[in-house]
């Protein structure tokens, strides 16, 4: 096909024109590249391809890099090449400025197509030819019908192509108007004429439209009508080229439909994020679903090559490590690139930072030649299910921890961690609502690590927790700019951009106890509302706290029960049916009652509760009587799983009962005796009518005296009972000892004179705290006794003197005295020394027992002294009424004596007082002795026979020459009846014991200190030191003899006594001290071994306690001792009854 002759045209198809002036190169290139309907290429001067566009690629099938540089003749048919047409075309284009032709062209795959080709020369600004622009249009594979029309539009020429196209033979159509090719509606519209007119006007007309074949069928045609003019420009006809593009038209329509479908799908798939990329990852498609899901707009994203922007960096890195790839894009398309379907879960990061879990399908896009052209990534939001799954897993872990009853703090911290990490929150906390508006963080987790349990919060802000507090229901809200409340600040945000916060109430016992709260820096509610989950976790928190509280309450209950049963005096235990101990209280262990368990083997006796009395021997070898109650414990099936036992020690009760029985028996005997006499006498009087008058009188006398005795007896028994039981109140008041003495003496005056006994008093006025009525009763009783036992003409002396810090009342008689072994017994009830003595028989046998009771009630002491055959003296000691009396003032320890006499006498005394613990000072004369200034001075001892005359005169004078210091005189002379200047008189040759006793009598500080008798020096020094620290004076004796000596002169208030000692053991010490009337206010035995009852009885000296070194550590013992001393000290003022504890 040759080029049309003389083609000159201002045709609108000159879009390949190289006139690019005004347009920049890039824009032009972009425009050309975007054209796909035309192959637009540039040829160099030799006709080689220089540029290539997408249309060229599409039409001709070559990729740009395989065609650029090759001669454009590869597009021409072999015949055209052989005819030199490619070169001709260039030449014509250069000379004519344009070459246009319709001809067959060849694609890369060898197929031919009918093409319309326009070649235009391209020149630079200087007009030099630089190359050619070539525009090729694909007119289909069927070629074209080319014919000529005359000026009027009649067909002038016809060829084979036209015949094939349109079905007319040449003779049929020549001369026919060309409008026969048009459909009737076009003809009616005048389209054929109009087109010719346009072609005539413009030189060229191109149209695509339906045309009609001879057989009436229509085809889609591309029609180009060119006006033909002669040299004068006179129109002489038209050239019409018609290409059948029906097939292409169909294809195009299909394509259009499919493109519309794709576009529609992309737009409609709002629930899916669809992102398409080219081979390099540049985003080409970003659908509305992607916009919605990720928050970016398509215009922002298209053209970008940044898949990393929307992916979680950690996930990408992890997958990259798996695949050994670094580029995010490569990682993402790895599978798709290999033609494999790839569906996996990823986390998309939205523009706002929100993380979304997606199921992502990445597919490769290929063209019809299976060439890879790009990728498409379709993502579905699976956050809901991922979150739900994460929440389920976290809940399960929390549930396990709660069920395992782990420490509640651990559970709370676990909950916050799980809740916080589960949804990538910044922080999670459990806040307890306190009083007012306060809250306390009790469980916390935060990314910053800044939130910690124990933190105090103020909930008066607009935080979610505060909202929960007010409303009691779950709360959640976003805040984009707020003054962060304390809790949010502590979440570790420097700025105040806490955007989301939610809290769920923790309800315990129907009350909103607190809140489980979370804070996130981003809005997570986009795809997930965490409030629902929070409510579930809050339920577990409330469960865990309630559980913990119940466990604590249970434990408290157990502890309480435990301490209660431990404190019980009864032994309590629980053992299994086999007799193995499950639980035992302290008393059980102390009493070592394991022998009772053996009987627990399940037998008939244990099936029902039992209560029996058992006797067994305890650890210390004493026989104990126990009431043992056993009862079976049954489980819900009624089976016995344990036996509970309670054993009460009734040994003491039994002893008391026995003593009471004995007393009742004795009392009954004592009452029956006078009653018998009364009844006997009266019966005799009644029965014997012939009784002489003397006998009658005698019987009446007997009845009378017996009834008097009976009534006295009853009175005394009642008295004793009243005082003993505390019914008789001891009304302590300040009284004058001297007045009490003279009143009592006066009251007994007449009885005395009846018996021919005189009563004398020697009393100094001292204040005492006492019940005057009871003291009078004691004195009257004692005086009565003294009168009874005095010989006619005898003398009874009643008095009161001060010894140390007490007042001692005394009643001395000149009777036959009391044997030493009976001195203590006389205070027992109904003790009759010798009933042949009518004086004894006349008493009730209760008087002294009553006196002792009264003394006890006064915290006083009563005892008897007697020098066999030389009368006896009853002493009754009461604490001196004195404000400054401190029974335990260490500075008041009197530990030294001044010895006054010639050197030999002084040496002798020193020897006698050896090992007494006393410091001995010496003076030659009494005058010298008086000047000794020694605060601890106890007494001055004067050897009367070895001092100078002047001293002797002083020592035997009327007044005490030693001031406040007591004076003891030692002399060969008989003790004068009254001691004036001296406080004590010791007969020579003096004995060690005599001297110590005298010192004890005069010791102004008797009954104040503590004497510790202990051969273990280190233990003793610990005790002494501790006591000194507490303000108690303590002395230490290392041996039995030392203890006796020291106790004799010091009269300790409390005696602490070890049993095993060198030079006389504890028993000996107690025995000797008893005979010397050294009666401490308390004695504490601290023995190495447990003592039998008999041994304990032998060691009793005043109120006595027993401790065992193996069971009571020195510290405990010390504590107890101090407690005891404190008690005694306070009682010295309060006069409360002495009660002693016992060893536990």
């Amino acid at each position, binding site marked *: 096909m040759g080029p049309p002759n003389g083609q000159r045209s201002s045709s609108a198809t000159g879009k390949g024109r190289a006139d690019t002036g005004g347009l920049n190169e890039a824009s032009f290139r972009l425009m050309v590249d975007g054209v796909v309907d035309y192959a637009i290429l540039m040829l160099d001067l030799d006709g080689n391809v220089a540029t290539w566009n997408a249309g060229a690629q599409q039409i001709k099938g070559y990729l740009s890099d395989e065609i650029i540089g090759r001669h454009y003749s590869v597009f021409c048919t072999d015949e055209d090449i052989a005819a030199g047409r490619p070169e001709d075309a260039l030449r014509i284009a250069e000379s004519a400025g344009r070459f246009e032709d319709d001809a067959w062209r060849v694609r890369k795959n060898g197929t031919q197509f009918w093409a319309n080709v326009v070649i235009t020369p391209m020149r630079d600004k200087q007009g030099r030819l630089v190359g050619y622009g070539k525009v090729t249009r694909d007119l289909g594979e069927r070629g074209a019908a080319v014919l000529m029309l005359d000026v009027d539009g009649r067909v002038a020429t016809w060829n084979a192509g036209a015949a094939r196209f349109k079905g007319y033979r040449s003779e049929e159509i020549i001369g026919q108007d060309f409008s026969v090719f048009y459909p009737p509606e076009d003809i009616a519209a005048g389209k054929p004429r109009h087109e010719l007119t346009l072609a005539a006007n413009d030189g060229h007309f191109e149209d695509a439209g339906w045309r009609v074949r001879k057989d009436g069928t229509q085809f889609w045609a591309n029609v180009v009508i060119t006006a033909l003019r002669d040299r004068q420009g006179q129109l002489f006809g038209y050239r019409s080229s018609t290409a059948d593009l029906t097939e292409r038209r169909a294809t195009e329509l299909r394509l259009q439909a499919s493109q519309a479908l794709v576009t529609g799908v992309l737009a409609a798939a709002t629930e899916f994020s669809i992102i398409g990329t080219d081979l390099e990852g540049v985003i080409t498609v970003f659908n509305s679903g992607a916009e919605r899901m990720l928050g970016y707009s398509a215009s922002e994203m298209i053209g970008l090559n940044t898949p990393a922007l929307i992916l979680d960096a950690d996930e990408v890195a992890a997958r990259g490590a798996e695949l050994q790839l670094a580029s995010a894009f490569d990682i993402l398309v790895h599978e798709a690139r290999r033609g494999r379907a790839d569906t996996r879960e990823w986390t998309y990061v939205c523009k706002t930072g929100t993380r979304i879990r997606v199921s992502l399908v990445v597919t490769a896009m290929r063209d019809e030649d299976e060439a890879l052209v790009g990728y498409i990534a379709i993502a579905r939001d699976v956050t809901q299910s991922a979150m739900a799954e994460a929440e389920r897993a976290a809940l399960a872990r929390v549930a396990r921890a709660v069920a395992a009853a782990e420490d509640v703090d651990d559970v709370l911290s676990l909950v916050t961690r799980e809740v916080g990490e589960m949804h990538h929150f910044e922080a999670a906390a459990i806040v307890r609502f306190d009083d007012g508006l306060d809250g306390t963080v009790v469980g916390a987790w935060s990314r910053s690590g800044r939130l910690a349990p124990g933190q105090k919060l103020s909930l008066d802000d607009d935080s979610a927790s505060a909202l929960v507090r007010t409303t009691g229901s779950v709360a959640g809200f976003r805040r984009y700019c707020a003054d962060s409340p304390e809790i949010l600040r502590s979440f570790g945000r420097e700025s105040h951009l806490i955007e989301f916060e939610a809290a769920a109430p923790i309800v315990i016992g129907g009350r909103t106890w607190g809140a489980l709260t979370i804070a996130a820096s981003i809005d997570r509610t986009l795809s997930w509302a965490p409030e629902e989950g929070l409510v579930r976790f809050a339920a577990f928190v409330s469960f865990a706290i309630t559980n913990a509280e119940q466990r604590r309450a249970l434990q408290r209950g157990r502890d309480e029960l435990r301490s209660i049963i431990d404190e019980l005096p009864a032994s309590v235990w629980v053992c299994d049916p086999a007799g193995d101990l499950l639980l035992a209280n302290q008393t059980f262990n102390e009493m070592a009652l394991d022998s009772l368990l053996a009987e627990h083997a399940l037998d008939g006796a244990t099936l029902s509760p039992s209560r029996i009395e058992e006797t067994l021997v305890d650890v210390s070898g004493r026989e104990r009587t126990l009431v043992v109650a056993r009862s079976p414990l049954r489980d819900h099936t009624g089976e016995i799983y344990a036996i509970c036992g309670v054993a009460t020690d009734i040994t003491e009760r039994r002893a008391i009962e026995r003593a009471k029985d004995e007393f009742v028996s004795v009392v009954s005997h004592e009452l*029956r*005796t006078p*009653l018998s006499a009364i*009844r006997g006498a009266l019966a005799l009087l009644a029965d014997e009518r012939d009784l002489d008058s003397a006998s009658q009188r005698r019987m009446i006398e007997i009845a009378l*005296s017996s009834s008097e005795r009976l009534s006295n007896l009853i009175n005394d028994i009642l008295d004793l009972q009243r005082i003993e039981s505390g019914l008789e109140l001891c009304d302590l008041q300040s009284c004058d000892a001297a007045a009490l003495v003279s009143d009592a003496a006066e009251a007994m005056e007449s009885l005395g004179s009846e018996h021919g006994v005189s009563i004398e008093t020697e009393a100094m006025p001292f204040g005492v705290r006492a019940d005057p009525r009871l003291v009078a009763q004691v004195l009257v009783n004692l005086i009565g006794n003294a009168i009874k036992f005095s010989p006619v003409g005898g003398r009874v002396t009643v008095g009161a003197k001060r010894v140390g810090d007490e007042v001692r009342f005394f009643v001395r008689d000149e009777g036959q005295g009391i044997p030493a072994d009976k001195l203590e017994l006389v205070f027992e009830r109904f003790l009759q020394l*010798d009933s042949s003595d*009518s004086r004894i028989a006349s008493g009730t046998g209760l008087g002294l027992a009553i006196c002792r009771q009264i003394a006890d009630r006064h915290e006083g002491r009563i005892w008897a002294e007697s020098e066999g055959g030389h009368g006896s003296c009853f002493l009754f000691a009461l604490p001196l009424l004195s404000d400054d009396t401190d029974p335990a003032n260490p500075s008041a320890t009197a530990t030294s004596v001044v010895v006054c006499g010639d050197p030999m006498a002084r040496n002798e005394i020193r020897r006698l007082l050896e090992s007494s613990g006393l410091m001995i000072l010496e003076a030659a004369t009494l005058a010298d002795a008086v000047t000794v200034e020694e605060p601890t001075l106890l007494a001055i001892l004067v050897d009367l026979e070895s001092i100078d005359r002047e001293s002797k005169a002083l020592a035997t004078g009327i007044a005490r020459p030693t001031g406040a210091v007591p004076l003891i005189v030692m002399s060969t002379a008989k003790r004068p009846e009254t001691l004036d200047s001296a406080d004590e008189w010791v007969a020579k040759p003096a004995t060690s014991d005599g001297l110590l006793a005298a010192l004890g009598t005069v010791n102004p500080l008797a009954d104040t200190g503590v004497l510790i008798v202990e051969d273990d020096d280190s233990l003793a020094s610990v005790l002494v030191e501790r006591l000194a620290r507490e303000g108690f004076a303590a002395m230490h004796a290392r041996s039995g003899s030392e203890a006796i000596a020291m106790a004799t002169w010091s009269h300790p208030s409390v005696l602490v006594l070890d049993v095993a000692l060198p030079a006389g053991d504890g028993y000996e010490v107690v025995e000797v001290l008893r005979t010397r009337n050294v009666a401490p206010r308390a004695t504490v035995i601290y023995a190495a071994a447990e003592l039998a009852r008999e041994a304990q009885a032998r060691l009793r000296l005043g109120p006595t306690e027993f401790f065992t070194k193996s069971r009571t550590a020195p510290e405990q013992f010390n504590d107890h001792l101090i407690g005891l001393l404190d008690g005694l000290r306070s009682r010295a003022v309060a006069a409360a009854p002495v009660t002693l504890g016992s060893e536990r």
Partner: protein
Amino acid sequence: MNTHPAMQRQQQQEPVMPAQILVVDDDANLREIVVLKLQLAGFETHAVNDGEAGLSAAQVRAPDLIVLDWMMPKMTGLEVSRALREDTRTSEIPIIMLTAKAQVDDLRRGFDAGATDYMVKPFNPSELVARVSAALTRAV
């Protein structure tokens, strides 16, 4: 069987020789009443005020019957009774315990110790005389 001479006399020709009763009691009043009652009933009496004296008097005087208190100094009535029963010279002398000990158990102990009869104080003096007479009769 060697019948007590005193009793034989009493039975055969009464009152030939009154029976001799030893009274042992530490309570002077009671002693006096018992003695007076027994004398009025025609018995000869000897009274002592404690257990020891009672035992020796019984051994020395060999009385026809002993009225014995229980609770006394030096020697109790029980001890005296046992001693008397162990001594062939006195083992057959009837003993009437006259005591304030009134429990059944006391009674048993009294009889165990050798008492012939037992009377609880306070007592009726006439009953005592009746019991004394009965005991003397039985002893024959």
